[in-house]
């Protein structure tokens, strides 16, 4: 008897009892055929899930194009554009890259990159904001001696 934890199936086939690898692989293949969603190593993305994510992504693209070309929102534009882009990115990361079903270590690694990216861009922007008046003054001095 062999249990398949991902689909909750129990195999009663005699061939699984033996330790012979070839026989077990034959059984695994037959099992995978019976239950199309089974894989011994990882989570298999279902067809409806993939299609739903794809059409959501296309819909969000249409939304961001409409908002970017038809609406005049001033400074909010940048924020809304980034929010929509981040929603799309989250869909891709969680489902297409199946981070939702992944090991916590991989999630941690990915989140750490976001942390350091925000530090990098945030600190650089803060620096640029603070020193730009001095830079501009120097540029003007150089331009008009």
């Amino acid at each position: 008897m062999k249990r398949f934890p991902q689909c909750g199936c129990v195999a009663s086939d005699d061939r699984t009892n033996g330790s012979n690898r070839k026989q077990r692989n034959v059984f695994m293949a037959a099992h995978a055929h019976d239950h199309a969603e089974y894989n011994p190593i990882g989570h298999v993305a279902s067809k409806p899930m993939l299609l739903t994510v794809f059409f959501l992504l296309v819909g969000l693209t249409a939304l961001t194009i409409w908002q970017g070309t038809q609406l005049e929102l001033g400074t909010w534009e940048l924020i809304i554009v980034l929010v929509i882009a981040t929603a799309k990115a989250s869909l891709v990361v969680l489902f297409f890259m199946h981070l939702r079903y992944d090991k916590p270590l991989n999630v941690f690694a990915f989140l750490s990159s976001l942390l350091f990216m925000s530090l990098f861009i945030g600190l650089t922007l803060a620096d640029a904001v603070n020193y730009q008046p001095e830079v501009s003054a120097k540029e003007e001095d150089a331009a008009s001696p």
Partner: protein
Amino acid sequence: MSATADPSTATADPHGTAGHGHGHDDHHEPFLAHHFESWQQQFDAGKLGVWAFLVQEVLFFSGLFCAYAVYRMLHPEVFEYADQFLSVPHGAFNTVVLLFSSLTMAWGVRCAMLGQRNGLIGCLAVTLFCAALFLGVKAYEYSEKYHAQLIWAGADPLTVSPSGMQAGAGHLLELDPEKRAVGEQLEERLASTLHYLEFGMGVVGLLTLAAAVGIYYAKPERIGLAVVFGAISLSAIAIVIGAMASMGIHHMMHASGHEATADSEAEAAHMAEAEDEPPVHTATPGTAEIAGSTHGASVKAELSRPQRLGTFFGIYYAMTGVHALHILGGMVVLTWLLARAVKGHFTPNYFGPVDYVGLYWHLVDLVWIYLFPLLYLIG
């Protein structure tokens, strides 16, 4: 190989050493490395490695996004001005192409995990096709900007005279004795550049297709090589289709642009090739400031190229160019996967390479998800 029996793998012995003595390698799985105890361990180790690589990629691209953010904060007017030169329809087309390729890639991973060889081959081929299609549209966009002299600061490709600074768009008129509208001339040049590209890619596509078919029939044992040639052929043909589709979109925009009002978005996107009057150069050295561009009957307000436009396009080409290089790299690894998939290397136990390439491909898509609105939509 290490033939010592491993007590930790009680349920599975993928190395096939159980019950065998030293030197009996005939049952060894060819794709399970010796230093891994199980398929699961090999897969998890590889996946962590790929995530580490992707983390590096995120940080690498964040350098470019940082340049964008700082420059945008300091000179928002340049972004506002440059926005009109980026064609939203082309960008949107490419976005959907890339999203679709992400779908087929994820579907390919699913097929690989379920051991569906034909499905995997089909998904990889469609993904590769979409990648090349994306590059075809990019080739159109770059050509259009090159001919409209929207290039990075310091570059002046159409300059013939050594005086450099005074050249610029003025040459467009001087080179044409009939003094037709600049927009028409630019379109003609663009079309001719793309015809060269399409011809060259068409020849490459046919030659590699012939090579693939030839190898397949003459040396069936070299099936991997045949697949590589086939993949190059597919990519070349997709680039041709992408370039032709871009010209189609261009003509559609052009047609609607003439009917619509001056403010219409298609018209604005067309300003790149819509400089009817001879551009006037200011005497400012080191800049290519061009004043006075109106289009036909439209009453578009006078626009002058800001001094720092070249820096914007420097950022634009760096970001989209590095992204396009990643697409190219992705096409190389997709071709490799395709050859291995045709050879039947992948099994429900061994699909790691497909999954890892998929993760990389989705990250490339992810970068474009941010690039498209930041470059094409907000200005």
